[in-house]
């Protein structure tokens, strides 16, 4: 009984006209996502270097000074001050002026020269867990390396003394990080940013767009026409879906140009995945609009959904780091699958063969949410 294609086209034309007539809207839809990507890409740089470090060298021997110098030379640690006593060094940490304190005890050089056991203390401020982990691993790597070198020197000295070679088994670890060898975080972030911005643009604007028509009364005028709810919803959503694709294109380009996102996977797959994800984000927008009377309610409703979706998507913190009870909940979060899909496609270069399960989940989510939204919307007419 609907008016089919002519109605759908009329809604789309109207929607595009209204959107592009409003300059601020164009800015929100196209410029903002791109600018945000750049800003987020730089601001959420999780790379850790130059950790502020305080040194407490109570030995003051040539050996201890050399140790400190080499420890700082790697670039992970940056000297911010010196402390006379370990208690002073701790105060630096308490005040937050340093995140790492390196403590070298008196007699360290002496003991090493004498071939005795000696220990070094490193205090690490754990309040920023990511930084603490990096500091910890850099310190471990450094001192394990130093220890190996010291025993090697001792061994060579013994060999020279005894005039024969002493075979000592040695095991070295050679870690190699795949796909993101420099552990650069923008690479890790860009797919998440894409997922979030699409959510922002499509869910928020769909929810608010429909709520606006309800609030202003234009929906009532539409509902006395034979225009079918399907044509109305499709006509309202398609322009936003199209803008979403443009945003993703811009985002991928920025990622490639500014942040070295490798773009290994096929581009068509990126767009296909985006389209499937959009079913969900648009459907949620429609669902939210059916429970909102005003634009303000729609906005709050959208935020109420978007914030947990964002936090539980593995956007910035890996899901594996979340508390155990929380992790299963992330399987209910469509955004999680899209973030994983985009990482797989852009960074690991996975193709359809590896990524289809995620696409399938997104498709199921999308069709259910969209169907539910359309159904609820239809019911609200009566």
């Amino acid at each position, binding site marked *: *009984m609907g*008016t*089919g294609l*002519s*109605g759908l*086209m*009329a*809604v789309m*034309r*109207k929607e595009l*006209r*209204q959107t592009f*007539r*409003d300059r601020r809207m164009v800015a929100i839809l196209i410029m903002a996502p791109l600018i945000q990507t750049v800003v987020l890409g730089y601001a959420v740089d999780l790379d850790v270097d130059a950790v502020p470090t305080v040194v407490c060298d109570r030995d003051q021997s040539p050996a201890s000074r050399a140790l400190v110098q080499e420890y700082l030379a790697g670039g992970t640690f940056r000297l911010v001050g010196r402390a006379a006593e370990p208690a002073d060094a701790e105060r630096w940490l308490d005040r937050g002026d340093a995140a790492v304190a390196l403590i070298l005890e008196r007699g360290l050089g002496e003991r090493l020269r004498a071939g005795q056991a000696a220990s070094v203390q490193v205090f690490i401020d754990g309040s920023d867990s990511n930084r603490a982990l990096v500091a910890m691993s850099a310190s471990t790597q450094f001192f394990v390396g130093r220890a190996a070198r010291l025993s090697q020197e001792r061994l060579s000295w013994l060999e020279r003394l005894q005039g024969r070679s002493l075979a000592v088994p040695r095991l070295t670890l050679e870690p190699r990080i795949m796909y993101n060898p420099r552990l650069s975080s923008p690479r890790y972030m860009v797919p998440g940013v894409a997922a979030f911005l699409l959510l922002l643009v499509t869910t928020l604007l769909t929810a608010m767009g429909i709520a606006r028509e309800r609030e*202003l*009364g*234009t929906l*009532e*005028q*539409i*509902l*006395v*026409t*034979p*225009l079918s709810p399907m044509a109305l919803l499709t006509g309202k959503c398609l322009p936003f879906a199209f803008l979403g694709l443009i945003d993703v294109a811009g985002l991928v380009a920025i990622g490639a140009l500014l942040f070295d996102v490798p773009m290994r996977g096929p581009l068509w797959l990126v767009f296909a995945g985006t389209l499937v994800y959009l079913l969900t984000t648009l459907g949620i927008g429609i669902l939210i609009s059916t429970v909102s009377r005003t634009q303000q309610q729609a906005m709050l409703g959208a935020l109420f959904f978007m914030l947990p979706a964002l936090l539980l998507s593995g956007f910035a913190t890996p899901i594996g780091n979340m508390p155990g009870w929380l992790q299963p909940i992330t399987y209910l979060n469509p955004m999680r699958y899209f973030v994983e899909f985009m990482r797989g496609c852009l960074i690991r270069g996975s193709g359809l063969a590896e990524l289809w399960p995620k696409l399938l989940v997104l498709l199921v989510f999308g069709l259910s949410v969209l169907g539910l939204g359309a159904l609820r919307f239809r019911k609200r*007419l*009566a």
Partner: protein
Amino acid sequence: MGPEAVIEVAGLTRRFGSFTAVQQVSFSVRAGEIFGFLGANGAGKSTTIRILCGLLAPSEGHACVAGIDVARDPEAVKRSIGYMSQKFSLYLDLTAEENLEFFGGAYGLGRRALRQRGRELLARVGLRERSAEITGRLPGGMRQRLALAAAMLHRPRILFLDEPTSGVDPRARQSFWALIREAAREGVTVFVTTHAMDEAEFCDRIGLMADGRLRALDTPDGLKRSFLPGEMFHLELSPDRSIDALASQPGVLRIESAGAAYRLRVEAGRFDPEKLRALLGPAAVRVERVEPDLEDVFLEVVTQARGEAVP
């Protein structure tokens, strides 16, 4: 009852939670009629219209519009009706022409037919010169005429107009009513709500709503005859003088105060202005015979309704 009825309502009731907005309303509207729905704010006029347009489901009762049961097939009703809601509900950020283009598309008009019909209607409602202006910049009267044009795009047989002239200046009201009459002359049935009693005089028949009930239904003259038998006088008294001297006179039916003035209704033939002056003495500043208007009818109906509601 003369020509066919295009709207037939029987026992219509609509509840919102425990509140009954429309209660047991029954009436019918004939083809080509201008049917006025009168009542104070909250009387249930808009709720009735929304049910008739298929926007709200009735809680009880039946409503047939253009021969179709609106509760059973609201979609089928939509092609035969045009609706102007109480709140202006075209897009303020589109031009007049774009609004018509959108709603024409929603009604499934083809592009060419739409362009022609749009031009024709814009000329008819006097908006041809301003068709490219953003609707939000048009004055109120023009917006209402544009909304009427949008409601008529698909040549509906029935027009539902919910307070189309509220908040519009008197000249714009007149031009709007000229459009309503023009449509009626072409055979369109017009169902219009208002709380402006002077406009109601233009209607062929009037239904009076109070507190969700239809209290009276007749032509304007019929309503006056049945609710206001006798003669009406307009009285003005000097300040501080009481009208009590009249109240006890036999043949006095009702005295309504309207500010410093009074409207007096008496049995026909028992009083004339001279007699009233004599009765009131020096208190009378002005005494004249007047024709009853629908305002008087309305007050009478509401008073009677309240009297019934008390026991």
